[in-house]
């Protein structure tokens, strides 16, 4: 069999164009869609990868003259992404399902299939680039040329093997270029609206998803106190997961100064709020860090993004034992949410990243030491 490239196709314009560009360049391409959830289970569960999207992908594949398959990954997605999503909220953290999905489900599946089919590469429609170190031949990731569309953040923990096989045909293109290419190629999906939110949540309402999933195991989130960093009760929250770190509105508190959500404390079912100065964080503890290339042993400086839409903050990264690391921000970072990914960049090069275990803010140890009042999630 000729050198074959597997392309992950979602039915959206990005992956359609990625596939088309590879075909245009003369490669042997096979399109693969991953079925991540059961859409027949009542209503339109998600905004992406529905049976209708698969039909779109299938038709694009047919127009390109390539083979197309749908693989069922519902169980793996439920285990690695959905369960993790719920578990993180239970811990009072903010999950990042897209990062988990990319490495544990999408790339894991495509790479394994590529090996099985003796395919030489796995391509997706992600906006990112692969960099090969000319000296060592080691591969790592770069931001996409279109900085506004850059999705490298979500790919930070791809394994070495996954990166070895990865190709990102859209990495040098702008979103505008991609739409133009789609029209030039006559792709049906050229004007299809892209899903912006987490894929398994309809209309971006993750709270409803979470409520339903918790309900399935007989759990419910309980209301609890909103407290300041000294423990004084200021109001009532309606369930910790409804609030995001850094959120200012919707707290239902009359206060003389601006208050932001600075932490969710599940052991006391407390929502901790504070002023803008308390939102800032100078130190962050990370775990499960991974690097492209050899893990550094000594501290290094990097630009760190703690969210996808984060311009980045300069920090000193000190690697620790067992995949841990300490970040010390040179300028304080705002809205650091435990559970999110902290991704290290040097210019456009993605060095690696880790998961935020906790932000070291002066207030948190005080709050954590108080006795738990009531569980955050009750049966």
């Amino acid at each position, binding site marked *: 069999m000729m050198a074959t490239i597997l392309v992950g196709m979602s039915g959206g314009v990005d992956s359609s164009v990625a596939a088309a560009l590879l075909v245009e360049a003369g490669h042997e391409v096979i399109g693969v869609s991953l079925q991540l959830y059961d859409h027949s289970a009542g209503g339109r569960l998600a905004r992406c990868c529905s049976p209708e999207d698969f039909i779109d992908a299938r038709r694009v594949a047919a127009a390109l003259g390539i083979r197309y398959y749908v693989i069922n990954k519902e*169980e793996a997605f439920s285990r690695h992404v959905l369960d993790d999503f719920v578990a993180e909220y239970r811990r009072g953290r903010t999950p990042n399902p897209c990062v988990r999905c990319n490495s544990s489900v999408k790339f894991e599946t495509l790479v394994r299939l590529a090996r099985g089919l003796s395919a030489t590469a796995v391509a997706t429609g992600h906006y990112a680039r692969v960099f090969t170190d000319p000296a060592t031949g080691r591969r790592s990731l770069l931001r996409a040329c279109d900085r506004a569309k850059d999705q490298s953040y979500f790919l930070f923990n791809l394994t070495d093997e996954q990166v070895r096989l990865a190709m990102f045909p859209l990495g040098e293109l702008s979103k505008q270029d991609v739409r133009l290419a789609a029209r030039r190629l006559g792709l049906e999906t050229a004007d299809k609206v892209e899903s912006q939110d987490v894929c398994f949540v309809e209309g971006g309402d993750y709270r409803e998803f979470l409520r339903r999933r918790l309900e399935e195991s007989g759990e419910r989130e309980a209301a609890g106190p909103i407290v300041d960093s000294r423990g004084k009760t200021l109001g009532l929250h309606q369930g910790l997961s409804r609030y995001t770190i850094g959120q200012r509105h919707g707290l239902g508190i009359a206060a003389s100064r601006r208050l932001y959500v600075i932490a969710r404390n599940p052991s006391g079912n407390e929502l901790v709020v504070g002023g803008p100065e308390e939102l800032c964080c100078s130190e962050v503890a990370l775990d499960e860090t991974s690097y492209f290339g050899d893990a550094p042993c000594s501290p290094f400086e990097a630009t760190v993004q703690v969210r996808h839409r984060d311009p980045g903050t300069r920090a000193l990264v000190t690697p620790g034992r067992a995949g841990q690391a300490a970040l010390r921000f040179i300028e304080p970072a705002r809205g650091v949410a435990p559970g999110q990914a902290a991704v290290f960049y040097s210019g456009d090069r993605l060095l690696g990243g880790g998961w935020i275990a906790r932000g070291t803010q002066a207030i948190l140890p005080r709050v954590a030491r108080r006795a738990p009042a009531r569980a955050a999630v009750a049966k």
Partner: protein
Amino acid sequence: MRRVYLDHNATSPLGPEARSAMRRLLDEEAGVPLGNPSSPHASGHRARLVVEEARRAVSRLIGAAPSEVVFVSGGTEADNLAIQGIVEPGEPAHLVTSSVEHPAVLEACRKLRERGWELTVVGVDRDGRVHPDDVMKTLRRETRMVSIMTANNETGVIQPIREIAAGVRERGILFHTDAVQSVGKREIDVGALGVDYLAISSHKMGGPVGIGALYVREGAPLRPLLQGGGQERRRRPGTEAALLAAGFGAAADAVRLPGDEDRMRGLRDLLEAEVRRHLAVSAVDIGLVINGEAAPRVAGTSSMTFAGIDNEALVIKMDLAGYAISTGSACSTGSTRPSHVLSAMGLSSTAIASTVRISLGPSTTEEEIRRAAEALTDAVAELASIGRAPLASGAGSR
């Protein structure tokens, strides 16, 4: 290289007899276009004759009277009509089915449960067989119907219908069987089986998709699912599909038993023997289990579990090599659904994810089987030698 089609249980290629019967109908006959079978004019007469000829052919095939054959849109509708067709307004009752039924039966039974009926699902043994005693134990005064399939679509395992039906009907309880995977593949006689309802699908036996039949024993109750113009003796309204019926009837007439059955059994057994032989001399050590092997099976079906192999990857590899096989349990998106049949037989979820189904038909040749056996074991060996690395967590696994 010609493609080899080994997924007859999903659908069978249109047989030559069905094809020519339908082709003939597409042409006008002496200036008389094919009309609506219910119309009084020459066109209607022509169409009506076609439908009734087809009905006779199907009834002959199963040993029924033509008046006992109701044309429907396929096996799924036949099952639904039988199961939902016994519901009378008033007190809900009890029905019994097995854990390995096709979703058309299971979902129709579950629908009755929503209406207040009680449902008992009888399990199967490790060979996929229902034990008659297990069914008898579940029967109660309120039991109105028992539904057990004649042969399973994933494994080919044949159920002891005659015994079960006898015991059930002795108690005055109705018996339905989904015979979709049996009719045309083995001798089926409704009198000998002793059933009240029997479902048939045209496209599983060389006829066109879009038509099937429900055998309804004379005197057995049946309330129609659909409301309309009163066709099929008020049991299934809608203009009868003369074109499809012609194909279905021709396919029924073309069934050659036991000849086809013996030949298909021989080829299936050859496939299994060849696969075993190739595996034995393969450099890679792969365990093979043939599910339901110890039970009587319909000729032509083989459910194979290759230990540690990803069945979706295997099906794709075979497709790329020119062979159409199946994982046995499909989702309408084209991916796989975990098999409830294999689960009922006690297979682990890993084993289920390593199982493929190969189903041949009357058109399959020995050469195709030999080539397929080799291609299958080559593909399995390649997948096995690549190794089964544990699912990476992403972080820290570099």
